[in-house]
């Protein structure tokens, strides 16, 4: 790591970023706010969230040379990386950003121009498209020194990150988490814990920082507390009316995904939780008229979040729970500081996408009961096979067991070219009619 780069990063962190944020705040104050006919007043925390994420992407430019930079998958045990001072960057989060900024078709096309099939995951195509063109809605991404992946969310990330390892010519560390077909075994746990312990040596070498058990435990505790608080944030949505919509949480989840194990994420959720509890106490709902409560299955359709948010609110419907946002809170209960490696392995390998469909069905049944769900919207995402294969059965079984009406939208997470407005409209209107009966 270079001294000049470290100084520059320090400078930007202490002075540059705060100056940028102050400038943004000053600009925002000029805009008068009007009450919205559909939604409750905006959350005060939202401004803080935007600052945090903007600062994260702003500092990304100055991180290379000052910190070792790791590109990380959303389900990787990042708590371990924190010990070594890695600046972490999440290509999946960046993919979501490309989708929300409507840049995905252009970046995907660039990857397709280089021979990547249009049937591949569009997060991966956005990322590869960025590699080939240098384009990104975030300006400039920090060049990685390490790729850190876990296949607990999909095998796709292993194929994708191995392509990145090839292009950037840097090491790839994989945390291989056997799929939980029946039940997790002693051998599975030994394998996973063994890998985590073995990673320490290459991580020390790449970062130049020695492993420190106390730091590791502190990082685990911070990660645990962050996930737990995130879980509490989601739980406020059990109230009627819910103080949040799932579309809000698609953005509020950014810190627990990208900044887990850092104080800023934990602090943010504490503030958010306080504000939400206050809203619950005062009976303020995110959607003014919350007549029906819905559940979302699968990753968001990032280019449609705003449209859908309005469309459902117009019908007096609010999404109060999603299997997706819940994933970063669900398994944190397994974490045990007395047995850090094995319990970390358990926490990360039992997440929804690495677990059998029977588990998923029970989880969804529980969430439907806990959140008093009236209907289910299933996003069948071309990009994400582990999330999507089995959804048709889930739909059928939930109808059989709980008589929950549901609708399947065939679309994609970021590539709007695989989405048909007309087909979706028709399906959703039929779903709205079914819910009103």
């Amino acid at each position, binding site marked *: 790591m270079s001294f000049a780069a470290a100084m520059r990063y320090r400078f930007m962190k202490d002075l540059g970023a705060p100056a940028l944020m102050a400038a943004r705040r000053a600009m925002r104050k000029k805009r008068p706010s009007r009450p919205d006919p559909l939604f409750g007043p905006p959350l005060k925390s939202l401004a803080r969230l935007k600052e945090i994420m903007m600062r994260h992407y702003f500092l990304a430019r100055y991180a290379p040379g000052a910190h070792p930079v790791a590109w990380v998958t959303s389900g990787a045990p990042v708590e371990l990386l924190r010990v070594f001072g890695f600046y972490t960057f999440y290509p999946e989060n960046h993919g979501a950003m490309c989708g929300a900024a409507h840049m995905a*078709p252009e970046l995907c096309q660039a990857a397709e121009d280089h021979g990547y099939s*249009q049937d591949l995951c569009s997060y991966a195509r956005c990322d590869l498209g960025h590699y080939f063109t240098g384009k990104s809605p975030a300006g400039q991404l920090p060049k990685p020194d390490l790729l850190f992946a876990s296949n607990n969310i999909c095998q796709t990330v292993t194929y994708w990150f191995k392509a990145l390892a090839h292009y950037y010519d840097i090491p790839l560390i994989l945390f291989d988490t056997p799929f939980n077909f029946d039940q997790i075994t002693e051998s599975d746990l030994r394998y996973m814990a063994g890998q985590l312990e073995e990673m320490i040596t290459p991580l020390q070498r790449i970062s130049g920082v020695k492993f420190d058990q106390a730091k590791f435990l502190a990082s685990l505790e911070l990660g645990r507390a962050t996930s737990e608080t995130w879980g509490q944030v989601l739980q406020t949505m059990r109230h009627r009316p819910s103080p949040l919509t799932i579309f809000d949480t698609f953005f509020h989840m950014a810190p627990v995904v990208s900044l887990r194990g850092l104080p800023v994420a934990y602090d943010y959720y504490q503030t958010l939780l306080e504000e939400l509890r206050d809203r619950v106490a005062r009976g303020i709902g995110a959607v003014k008229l919350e007549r029906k409560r819905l559940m979302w299955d699968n990753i968001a359709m990032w280019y449609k979040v705003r449209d859908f948010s309005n469309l459902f609110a117009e019908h007096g419907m609010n999404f109060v729970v999603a299997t997706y946002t819940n994933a970063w809170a669900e398994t944190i209960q397994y974490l045990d500081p007395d047995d850090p490696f094995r319990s970390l392995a358990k926490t990360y390998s039992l997440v929804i996408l690495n677990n059998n469909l029977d588990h998923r069905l029970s989880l969804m049944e529980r969430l439907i009961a806990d959140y008093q769900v009236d209907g289910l919207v299933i996003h069948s995402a071309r990009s994400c096979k582990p999330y999507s294969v089995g959804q048709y059965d889930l739909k059928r079984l939930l109808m059989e067991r709980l008589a929950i009406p549901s609708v399947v939208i065939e679309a994609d997470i970021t590539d709007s070219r695989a*989405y048909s407005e007309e087909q979706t409209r028709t399906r959703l209107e039929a779903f709205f009619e079914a819910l009103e009966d």
Partner: protein
Amino acid sequence: MSLFAGIDIGSLSTEAVIIDQQAAMVAAVILPTEAHSTKAAETALEAALEQAGARRPELARIVATGYGRVSVPFAHKAVTEITCHGAGAHHLFPGTGTVIDIGGQDSKVIRLGPGGKVVDFTMNDKCAAGTGRFLEVMAAKLGAGLDELGPLSRAARREVAISSVCTVFAESEVVSLVARNEPREDIIRGLHRAIVNRVWSMVRAVGVEGQVTMTGGVAKNSGVVELLEEKVGQPINVYREPQIVGALGAALLARDQARALG
């Protein structure tokens, strides 16, 4: 006098070209293929002979190409349209390094090496996006004739973005654009952009080298050619009858083969 014939039996049309020893074209005909490819080949060849004022025995060698190439019993040899389009384009525009052929059912991009030899090529996958068929479906939806597409597209003041790559999706997108009263010209230009983006992926895969020549029926669409030229960053060669380039290539190969056989 020795003559050489090339017959290109495509799914929609059949072309026959006759050349002489000096490779000068003495006849060129385009006929619809209809249901029977052997018959189509026969009819096209007869029409070409008539145009050339020649008789069958004067033909020293016949090469068939296109999907129906194996159904031409009187051809001496069958050669794929990739090799034939390469040979034809090289003959017409000797500086050609890349051939873009957008036909009715498929499109291909061919890289040529020295002497017009094929060194690389790619074809579209089963999906119809990026073929003449895509434009045909859309033109029908918009009530425009195929030959009107080029001028209409060039008259567009704006360009409507067509986001879907799938023909079925794009069709419903076009329907809703029409419902929103978007000008037809702007939609057509958007459709041309969509097809060019698809074809560009294939061009990118084999690379641009030297001059670029476009063949196949869609090459007559000035709107597509213009947008492709923008992408390629250089003017594109288009022969006045771009559909016959494959048959011409086949005739040229017939001549080469006859020479090699002595």
